[in-house]
């Protein structure tokens, strides 16, 4: 290694280490907490809506898919949207046009709850 190359490597190494440390130290944000693309998905699996809290931009369409082998529904607590009973692999979609937090639940199993945050 020449003296010049060694100097560049000596400078680059701490920069790379600093970048790695910075990225490692930055707070990890769950995907569900960030406004995601215009289309988002919620899976109903083992009696749980996943993710339980989904953040989407205004105009986003959220699709719920029932992955359980028993029926579920998706109904907002304030009556904004209401799915029919979804069988296995059936889907329900709703487009959110207003920034608000929408709480929803399954009417057959009311312990199953979720939230869509529209920003």
């Amino acid at each position, binding site marked *: 290694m020449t003296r010049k190359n060694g100097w560049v490597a000596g400078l680059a190494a701490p920069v790379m280490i600093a970048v790695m440390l910075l990225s490692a130290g930055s707070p990890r944000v769950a995907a569900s907490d960030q406004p995601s693309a215009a289309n988002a998905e919620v899976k109903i699996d083992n009696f749980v809506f996943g993710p339980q809290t989904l953040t989407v931009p205004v105009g986003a369409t959220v699709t719920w898919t029932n992955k359980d082998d*028993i029926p579920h529904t998706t109904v907002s607590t304030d009556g904004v949207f209401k799915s029919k009973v979804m069988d296995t692999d059936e889907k329900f979609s709703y487009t959110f046009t207003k920034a608000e937090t929408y709480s929803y639940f399954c009417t057959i199993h*009311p312990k199953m709850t979720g939230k869509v945050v529209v920003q």
Partner: protein
Amino acid sequence: MSSFFPTRGFLGTGATFAADINLVVQLIMGAALITGLVLAKQKRYQAHGICQTTVLLLNLLMIGLVMWPSFRQVKPSFRKVVHNWYYTAAAGHAVLGITAELLGLYIVIVAGTDILPLRLRFKHWKRWMQTELVLWFIVLVSGVGTYYVWYMAPVR
């Protein structure tokens, strides 16, 4: 589910309000039927008739308001009933329950009215009523089982 009721139940099991109310009412009706049996043993037949008929009619109301709408909502196909306990429990309970309710109505009609012709009336009162009582308690147990499968087992 019927919109007469709020959504969340009050027994803390994850069931709907309607299912919780139904469970409590069914258990009370079971106790009332035992009371009716005691009344018959004491030869207080009029009180016995009123007690058992009230239970039968109240159950008809619970079927119409809670159980039938719940069952119809999930629309179980034959394939699902055979392969999935969730549906098997409900379908089994429905078949037994409808049988018990119809048999009960038949007994009440024969015992309390003269509508049916003689050839359609039974004579062995005790045997018919005992059969109905045993069937009713089998239905009660299967109903508690259905409640467990639908609401308690999934959230354990």
